[in-house]
């Protein structure tokens, strides 16, 4: 009976720790670094390879990941340190809804425009050339004479 109680007590202690270990880490550096900026480099953190500021930011993110912060929590911590401009994805930054929409709409429009242009060019290229309209009357006769003079 005493052994059973001891086993139950041990289990009670271990279960929450095991659950916590299972849920942590909740995100990873690789998952975050493409969605945030390196503010000094002016590029997404994932593209800023060996810049010292980027290395510092990565170390900071890794510390937050190791302390079991979620991706949203890490991003909020980065905003507290570097301001809203640290967020790389449109929509992550508040306040400029029109800008966030345009970021998606303009490339889509560009792709549509390019596709339409290519389709238009292909259709024109494949269309058979219309035969040249014959020149009527005196002009036609003169043209025929001129053409006859050339041995083409």
């Amino acid at each position: 009976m005493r052994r059973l109680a001891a086993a139950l007590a041990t289990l009670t202690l271990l279960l929450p720790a095991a659950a916590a270990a299972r849920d942590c880490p909740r995100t990873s550096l690789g998952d975050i670094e493409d969605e945030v900026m390196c503010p000094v480099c002016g590029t997404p953190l994932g593209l800023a390879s060996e810049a010292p500021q980027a290395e510092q930011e990565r170390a900071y993110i890794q510390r937050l990941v190791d302390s079991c912060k979620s991706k949203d929590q890490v991003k909020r911590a980065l905003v507290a340190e570097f301001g809203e401009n640290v967020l790389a994805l449109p929509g992550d930054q508040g306040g400029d809804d029109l800008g966030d929409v345009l970021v998606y709409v303009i490339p889509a429009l560009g792709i549509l425009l390019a596709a339409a242009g290519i389709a238009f060019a292909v259709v024109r290229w494949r269309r058979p050339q219309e035969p040249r309209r014959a020149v009527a009357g005196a002009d036609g006769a003169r043209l025929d004479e001129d053409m006859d003079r050339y041995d083409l």
Partner: protein
Amino acid sequence: MRKALSPVPVAVVCVLLGLVALLAYGLASNDPDRGVDEALQRGEREHAPELELPKLGSDGTGALADYRGQVVVLNFWASWCKPCKDESPLLERWHRRMADRGGTVLGVDMLDVTGDAQAFISDYGLTYPMLKDKDGDGLERFGVVQYPETFVIDRQGRIAALRRGPVDEAFMRQSVEPLL
């Protein structure tokens, strides 16, 4: 009769012109402001821009205007910047030297992790006041383009000297000492 232009080449030319305009705008907007450098070369002193930022590691804000009437050595730095480490002991010495002569060093920690900046301050025993420029607002106002940069501001709030890069004893003697 004038032949109508085909819409495809017109659209392509318009898109290309738009891209060129966008590129030109991007290049122009990224061009750093060199107005202060040019004014100093002409022997003129421009008024320093307004600067109000949160205090580093404590509540409240601090402003450059708080030090009006003093000589201010405004130093932009970050904890990850190697030259900033090299110049910090010199700045601390000068801060102590200036303190009873109406001068101060004012540090602005730029785009930095607060914990790392505080560790830096502790490691180098820095006692001068520090502000935190978390999103680069002060950096833009002063046209800071590299780390570190130091602006020497006279008692009238005008920029009397500027060093883009780490300061040294010769710069401080030449640029700060005469203002004290």
